[in-house]
């Protein structure tokens, strides 16, 4: 069985510090997989390796059978991998609508000259981009905020805008980096539904980093647990929850030394 996203033996070190070691992952087409682990375990580093921000020291990454190693981030994005960021990276001074339309740029075909001349083709393309963007905003429930400056959105909306923006790339794989961080319980419930809807509607495969265990356990079919840059568990939510190594990594060992 090969998944849409296949990662084998990926490692990277920063100045001698091994941040990620021998990372492996297989994301099934249409799958919804979780990547969890305590703070500092290297989860975001994995995302950066997958999206080309860092180039791994060793290992292979392939998307739909195509090698991604050595590609630039924008090439990987165009190849069909979109992401959100843990510490929200919106185009803060631009409008909500423009944030999404920027991501559509990768899918547009008009030349700069045509844009400047405003040829009928370019006008049509702009309309298409806008229409597409408005649709996405509608799905994410942000349509009425389209003209607001991204910076002024509430936190939860900013998170959702990041997802909408990633969707505008028309990706095959969506990487979500802590989408629920900073959301209140109601928002989290809504987010849970949203991720499911989005996956169905855009036939995506989703890889999710999340700290909220309830969310992860509920959403994901498969979970990979990372600690100190290495995979310590991999499997169904139930098997992971019961894994003593995972509990230790998370809650810390209620060890004798401390209680002494």
């Amino acid at each position: 069985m090969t998944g849409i996203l296949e990662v084998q033996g990926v490692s990277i070190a920063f100045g001698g510090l091994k941040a990620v070691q021998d990372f492996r992952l297989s994301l099934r087409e249409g799958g919804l997989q979780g990547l969890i682990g305590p703070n500092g375990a290297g989860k975001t580093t994995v995302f950066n390796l997958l999206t080309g921000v860092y180039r791994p020291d060793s290992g292979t990454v392939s998307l739909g059978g195509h090698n991604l190693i050595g590609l630039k981030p924008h090439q990987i994005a165009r190849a069909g991998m979109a992401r959100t960021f843990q510490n929200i990276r919106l185009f803060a001074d631009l409008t909500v609508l423009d944030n999404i339309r920027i991501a559509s740029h990768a899918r547009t075909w008009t030349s700069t000259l045509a844009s400047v001349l405003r040829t009928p083709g370019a006008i049509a393309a702009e309309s298409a981009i806008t229409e597409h963007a408005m649709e996405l905003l509608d799905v994410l429930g942000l349509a009425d905020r389209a003209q607001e400056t991204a910076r002024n959105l509430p936190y939860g909306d900013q998170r959702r805008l990041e997802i909408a923006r990633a969707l505008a790339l028309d990706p095959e794989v969506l990487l979500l980096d802590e989408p629920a961080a900073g959301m209140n319980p109601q928002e989290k419930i809504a987010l849970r539904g949203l991720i499911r809807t989005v996956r169905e509607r855009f036939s995506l495969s989703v890889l999710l980093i999340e700290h909220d265990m309830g969310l992860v356990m509920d959403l994901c079919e498969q979970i990979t647990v990372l600690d100190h840059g290495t995979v310590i568990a991999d499997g169904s939510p139930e098997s992971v929850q019961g894994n003593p190594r995972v509990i230790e990594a998370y809650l810390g060992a209620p060890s004798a030394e401390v209680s002494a």
Partner: protein
Amino acid sequence: MTKLLQTLMDGVSVGSLYALIALGYTMVYGILKFINFAHSDIFMLGAWVSFTLATLMGWTSDAPWIAGPAVICGSMLICGTIGFVIERLAYRPLRAAPRINVLITAIGVSLFLENVGQLEYVFGTRPQRMPSLLPDTVLASVAGVSIRLVDVLVIGIAFSLMGALEYLVFSTKLGRAMRAVSHDLKTASLMGIDVDRVISITFIIGSSLAAAAGFLTAAKYPSINQPAHSNWILFGLKAFVAAVVGGIGNVRGAMAGGLMIGLVEMFGAAFFSPNLRDVYVFTLLIVVLLIKPDGLLGRATVEKV
């Protein structure tokens, strides 16, 4: 041979002046991350204040030995104060603003100092002769190159000041605080360091070093250009290039960069063509940045994603 030695000496003495100015640039950049364009004008003020002080004291000829030290100290003091005031009034309100704003403000301050300096009752528009406060005797003659006391003093004072700064930065409590602030403002404040005070002190030190460079420049080249002459800025810009070539934010890098720029400029002028001096400096800059974008002694910075 004579030419080689002569050029070497000129290069080192001009280079040490660049280095002195570069220190002010590099310290401010290290902490506040902007090019303080007005620093060149402090250098200009250093020369003009020295001239004014010497004239006011009547030390125009046959000045007592105390005149030199007194004027350089006076000029450093006054320019240090001016640097302090500039930071306080023009830069501090912009601490949280985008750096481009601070940069434009710095250009504004630079224009202000030049145009005020140019007013008839301030310094005026004529060049003036800096009285010779440093003795100018020939110490020795090596292979046809006469080594003059004034040059030795210029290099000596420049290097002692750099040494003093090096000591201050690396061996005192204040220096540790300065380095901490340049590493991270917020963490530094968690140590109980009054960041604003450290920044003020940095401006005072940087400005007094520039003033010293102004004095030494005037001592070495006694005809001092009028305040709005673009050459002051150009000289300062080349000093900033020195700071960048050496690795911005790095005290030793600024010194090394200053000497390097001085030598490249002088050797290029003497052995290739004097017409293209500025071209050598800026070409060196471009080459160094393309090979090693963080300067020769700089550290690579990685942006966190």
